[in-house]
């Protein structure tokens, strides 16, 4: 007897448009992926990779897929964005603030509302002509398309605990397709925006994205996940990142979903030689958010920088699982993550670093610091080093504790009241992850968003 969650999805699959399921000869893959997910079920308490995140509450819920756009909803959102009547910036919700900024700065963007491409909110032009930038649904609907372009969708997920990747492979009919050819430097940033909104009943939304940066090319990608209205949907997204030789990708991901939304995200990145991948992740919302970030450094000299913050307040459960795989010589990673547990929140962090035999000259460094501010909150952290080469420098550090009393005293001795001093130090504690954002305007904007969120965090 499978769980209600999987039963509801199985029923939902039968209701998907047959043409969309069959498109690009993916019908077989989709059905097999669904069968595998149903066969193995959801990862249980004994699944090591899910040790600190229980799916028992989620598995009792039911969700139905949503395959068509809600035109009136999108039109309503478009009006709100276009409406330039001054609203106090503080009260403006994050999604609206961000979309207005993107629109004002004419940033090329794909916006998905409840898992479906929303042309009215998107802007496809503005990138160099050689760049392929389109919704996946458009490519799937085009019978003339070279099937090799969509090969990534045929990937099978073999491990029993990859339930959500399998479900994604079965269900995802839309997403971002972004290919930057060799040598192209994209001066403009590109945005991917996923908006959740209340729809009839709770919905399961699946999105699949591909970001490919060609040899020596560079791109600045901003990925946003917001709630446009209060909702309790399940959003399951899978991002493939391919960086060719010498490619550079700066990737910002901000997740500020509704406090009832469930997010399951996975990013699989593959880096060729000398490729450079910089990431900043902000986990600020949702009731349950699990993000798996798998980065394979396959070419020598490939580099990863990953910074992030987990803000687990309220009754939020945030679980980020990094898996960095050093498979080539002279690769490097630097991981700086901060976690905060307040209210009844729980922050779970796993920082896995694997250095394979032969990956000499590798350097790997992880810092995970956490603040635990409430007697009902919990922090679980597991930094892992798995090392099979000897010419390496690897280290990790993890701490769980409180604000530094010496710093607190210093601020108070200068006249800053205690509550304000605590907030300043908490902000500073988290802000460190933004240090590597090169775009000053963006950094200030994200800093403000973070500060706004932290202002609402009581101990």
């Amino acid at each position: 007897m499978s769980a209600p969650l999987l039963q509801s999805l199985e029923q939902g699959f039968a209701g998907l448009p047959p043409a969309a399921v069959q498109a690009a000869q993916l019908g077989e893959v989709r059905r097999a992926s669904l069968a595998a997910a149903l066969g193995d079920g959801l990862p249980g308490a004994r699944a090591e990779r899910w040790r600190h995140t229980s799916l028992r509450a989620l598995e009792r819920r039911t969700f139905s897929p949503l395959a068509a756009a809600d035109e009136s909803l999108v039109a309503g959102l478009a009006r709100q964005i276009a409406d330039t009547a001054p609203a106090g910036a503080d009260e403006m919700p994050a999604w609206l603030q961000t979309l207005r900024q993107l629109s004002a700065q004419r940033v090329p963007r794909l916006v998905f509302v409840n898992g479906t491409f929303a042309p009215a909110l998107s802007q496809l032009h503005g990138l160099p002509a050689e760049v392929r930038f389109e919704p996946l649904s458009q490519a799937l609907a085009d019978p003339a398309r070279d099937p090799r372009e969509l090969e990534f969708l045929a990937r099978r997920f073999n491990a029993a605990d990859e339930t959500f990747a399998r479900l994604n492979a079965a269900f995802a009919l839309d997403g971002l397709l972004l290919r930057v050819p060799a040598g192209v430097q994209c001066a403009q940033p590109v945005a991917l925006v996923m908006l959740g909104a209340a729809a009839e009943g709770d919905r399961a939304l699946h999105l699949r994205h591909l970001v490919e940066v060609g040899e020596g090319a560079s791109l600045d990608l901003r990925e946003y996940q917001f709630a446009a209205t209060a909702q309790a949907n399940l959003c399951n997204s899978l991002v493939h990142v391919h960086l060719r030789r010498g490619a550079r990708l700066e990737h910002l991901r901000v997740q500020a979903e509704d406090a009832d939304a469930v997010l399951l995200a996975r990013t699989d990145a593959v880096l060729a030689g000398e490729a450079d991948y910089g990431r900043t992740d902000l986990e600020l919302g949702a009731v349950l958010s699990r993000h798996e970030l798998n980065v394979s450094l396959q070419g020598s000299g490939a580099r990863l920088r990953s910074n992030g913050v987990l803000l687990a307040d309220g009754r939020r459960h945030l679980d980020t699982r990094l898996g960095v795989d050093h498979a080539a010589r002279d690769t490097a990673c630097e991981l700086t993550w901060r976690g905060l547990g307040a209210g009844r929140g729980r922050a779970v962090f796993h920082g896995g670093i694997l250095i394979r035999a032969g990956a000499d000259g590798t350097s790997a460094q992880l810092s995970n610091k956490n603040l635990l501010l409430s007697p009902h909150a919990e922090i679980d952290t597991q930094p892992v080093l798995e090392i099979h080469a000897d010419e390496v420098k690897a280290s990790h550090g993890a701490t769980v504790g409180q604000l530094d009393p010496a710093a607190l005293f210093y601020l108070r001795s200068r006249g800053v009241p205690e509550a304000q001093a605590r907030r300043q130090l908490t902000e500073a504690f988290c802000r460190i992850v933004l240090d590597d954002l090169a775009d000053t305007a963006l950094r200030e904007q994200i800093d403000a968003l973070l500060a706004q969120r932290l202002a609402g965090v009581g101990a």
Partner: protein
Amino acid sequence: MLKIENLHVRVAGKEILKGLSLDVKPGEVHAIMGPNGAGKSTLGNVLAGREGYEITAGTVDFGDKDLLQLEPEERAAEGLFLAFQYPVEIPGVNNTYFLKAALNAQRKYRGQAELDSMQFLKLVREKLRVLHISDELLHRAVNSGFSGGEKKRNEIFQMALLEPRLAILDETDSGLDIDALKMVAEGVNHMRSPDRAFIVITHYQRLLDYIVPDFVHVLAEGRIVESGDKSLAHKLEEHGYAWLDERRVPERSAV
């Protein structure tokens, strides 16, 4: 302005200050000297309100307030400033932001209008100019990655900006080269005024060549054992602290 009477302080169960008394009036500069472990830094920390110091006896009046009853930020707002011996590095907290928050919190406490960003920046630039400090300092995080000299300079800059009634300099001269030392002294001298007092805590006489004190006190074994004018500092420099012990021997045997 500051009246310390018979102050006894314990740290981790050990008595460090054993009946210290000191009276500081507006406009005065008091130097407190003493050997390592005499309790010099304890005095600074107790006055600023650091946790972990148990006051077992004595009183401290600051103006018309019982200083020991005040929170650290209230002491600051009342006009007390401690230049730390080891200024704390606070990565991620911007110096300007921090100072504006501090200054405005103090102004609010005193019932003065808060400064807006423009007014604040104007004030900051003025102070920087006087102290010959580059405004690069403003963009950095509080003391983060600063050299020893830069940290001390930042303390003096904060003092200049916050304009306390009483400033306590806790071994501000330690680890400074002569140029940095002069800069610190210049900052202090510039701020000397009839209604502002200083307590300069130091191990060496050197700083007192540049900040000339009205009074010099010797702190040893938790008490002020000798007070005098600036010539006392020179005597100490010449003879070392051992000289004090020798002088105190008869007193001890008399007890």
